[in-house]
């Protein structure tokens, strides 16, 4: 590892993300953000003079492979902290590993609600959950988009189902009628049938939980079919790639995201600049997630003044990190709160922030 810190023994941080397979796209974005954070830290002289060494492993979002990677990072590389592992299923599989070795585990992505409910002291989620996002935006959406009825569709995995469940519950509580709920498989290419049904149900709005590839195809086809309803949802839609892929069909849609490159504020401006310099593109939600997770971990180690797991764990619990998208703190259960999520509308191929709301994890 390069960096000003020179000869001092590096502090090792393990990062497990899906680098191959169908979620590699998102996994690699997390790695980009994480590497940028590590580089910045080392450029600043590391942590107490020791460089941060990021060791990245491919977990393929498969529980077994992720456990392999975790065991390897812990045993062979002797990392002090683990970050990962994107898919909630993979994260759930390494949580007992972290617990067993008493090693802190930070995820910047996995959103499955009950991960923080398992009483695992070493687990921290530096990310929103669908419930938190829904709570933050359901009201704004219902009010600003003037929705009376909504059709909900989502990718058929834990994240998509979570998004649909939380938003439909909160919106229904606000008196918005639900006209249709259905799911599609990741990698689907043809949404005409689904869209035909939505068109027939005539909702005011369509809630979509989809990632870049599925989402862009879906939106294009929605436009082809002449679907009039307002489209909003969750997913990494506030990214350049997404807008480029979707083309004009992206115009006017809304997305509730924990991060968009157009979030105002100095911290974010600097982050976007250095990200653009490193990768020649704007960061998206996963890039930011990787960036934040590494910084949170680094600051905790710095505060702990030690690479002892227990010390880091305690420091993590006291996190107070100024991120591009607000302030991160952890609840006693390890759920982050205090940072902001934004509602963006894509206008003229730019994500324009229309509302900002802090993510609160009350109880």
């Amino acid at each position, binding site marked *: 590892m390069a960096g000003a810190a020179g000869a001092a023994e590096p502090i090792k941080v393990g990062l497990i993300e899906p680098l191959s397979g*169908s979620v590699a796209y998102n996994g690699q974005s997390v790695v980009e953000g994480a590497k940028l954070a590590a580089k910045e830290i080392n450029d600043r002289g590391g942590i107490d003079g020791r460089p941060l060494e990021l060791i990245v492993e491919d977990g393929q979002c498969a529980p077994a492979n992720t456990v392999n990677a975790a065991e390897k990072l812990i045993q062979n590389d002797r990392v002090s902290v683990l970050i990962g592992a994107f898919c909630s299923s993979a994260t759930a599989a390494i949580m007992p590993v972290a617990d067993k070795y008493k090693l802190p585990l930070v995820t910047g992505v996995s959103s499955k609600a009950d991960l923080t409910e398992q009483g695992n002291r070493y687990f921290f989620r530096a990310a929103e959950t669908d419930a938190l996002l829904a709570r933050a935006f359901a009201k704004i959406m219902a009010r600003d988009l003037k929705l009376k009825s909504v059709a909900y*569709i989502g990718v058929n995995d834990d994240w998509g189902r979570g998004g649909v469940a939380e938003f439909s519950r909160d919106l229904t509580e606000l008196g918005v009628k639900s006209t249709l709920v259905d799911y599609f498989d990741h990698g689907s290419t043809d949404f005409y*049938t689904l869209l035909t049904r939505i068109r027939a149900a005539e909702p005011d709005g369509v809630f979509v939980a989809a990632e870049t590839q599925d989402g862009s195809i879906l939106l294009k086809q929605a436009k*082809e*079919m002449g679907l009039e309803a307002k489209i909003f949802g969750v997913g990494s839609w506030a990214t350049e790639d997404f807008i480029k892929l979707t083309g004009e069909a992206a115009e006017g849609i809304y997305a509730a995201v924990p991060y968009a490159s157009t979030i105002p504020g100095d911290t974010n401006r600097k982050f976007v600049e250095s990200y653009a310099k490193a990768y020649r593109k704007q960061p998206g939600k996963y890039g930011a997630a990787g960036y934040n997770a590494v910084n949170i971990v680094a600051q905790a180690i710095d505060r702990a003044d030690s690479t002892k797991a227990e010390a880091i764990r305690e420091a993590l619990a006291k996190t107070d990190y100024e991120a591009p998208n607000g302030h991160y703190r952890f609840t006693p259960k390890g759920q982050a709160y205090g940072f902001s999520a934004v509602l963006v509308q894509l206008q003229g191929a730019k994500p324009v922030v229309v509302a900002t709301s802090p993510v609160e994890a009350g109880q």
Partner: protein
Amino acid sequence: MNLALQFLANGLVTGAFYALSALGLTLIFGLMRVVNFAHGEFFMLGGVLGWVATAVLGLDFATAFVLVVAAMGVLGWLVDRFMIERVRGHGEESTILLTIGLSIFLANATLYLAGPAPMKVPAPLTGKPLFLGPVVLTKSRLAAVAVSVVLVLGAYLVIHRTRIGRAMRATFQDAMAAKLSGIRTERIFAATFALGTMLAASAGMLLASIYSAQASVGGLVSLKAFVVVILGGMGSFPGAIAGGLILGLSEAFWGGYVSTGTVDIVGFVMVILILLFRPRGLFSLNAQRA
């Protein structure tokens, strides 16, 4: 009623695309009996190379298409001559393992070189959607359906009506007898594999202009293509069309009237049911006797 019409149209279009995606496999698996797990990756490469040629190098769609298909033909030829040829006659397991290795290699090498992001091939045809009564279609979809029909028909004619087609079938049924009739079987094997690769790649590029290309799509494409080939009956072109349409239509109606979350199940249940009653698919010959 209007709904049903739109579902029908959707089903026919996706069915045609399924048939198109499976065409290369009909040749390589159905006729040549090489269980080609790399089919999806050939399809994917068609899309990714199409993106390189159009979006990166700036060629127009037609030129790019010809180039990509030709390049993939060369790849197919090389794969057969230098790899599959070496294990021909060692039983199908060798080629299974070989093509699994090939598919892992191609998918991950592409991921490494082209990155994981979805890639869009600019569509050759654009414009407003067409409304035929209550049914919505787009020009590019119709064009792709037309191309599918042409390719399927073309492949059928080549295999069943030409000298080279007959030589192909002879080679796959009994290569020794084919050699003894003067057929250069190594060339036939390689040519068929190349042709199958080209068909897979052309499907990949065409559909990438409608959907998008991504290094990781191969597995899913292979899966559906195998289903289509088997539904129709090994090596039968009418069968591939029928298989594709059955799959497309049943998915459209199931997705339309039941749920889209479970559409994939219909294809597989269909496979199980059809094979239960017709153990060799819908259209295939049985010349086996005791």
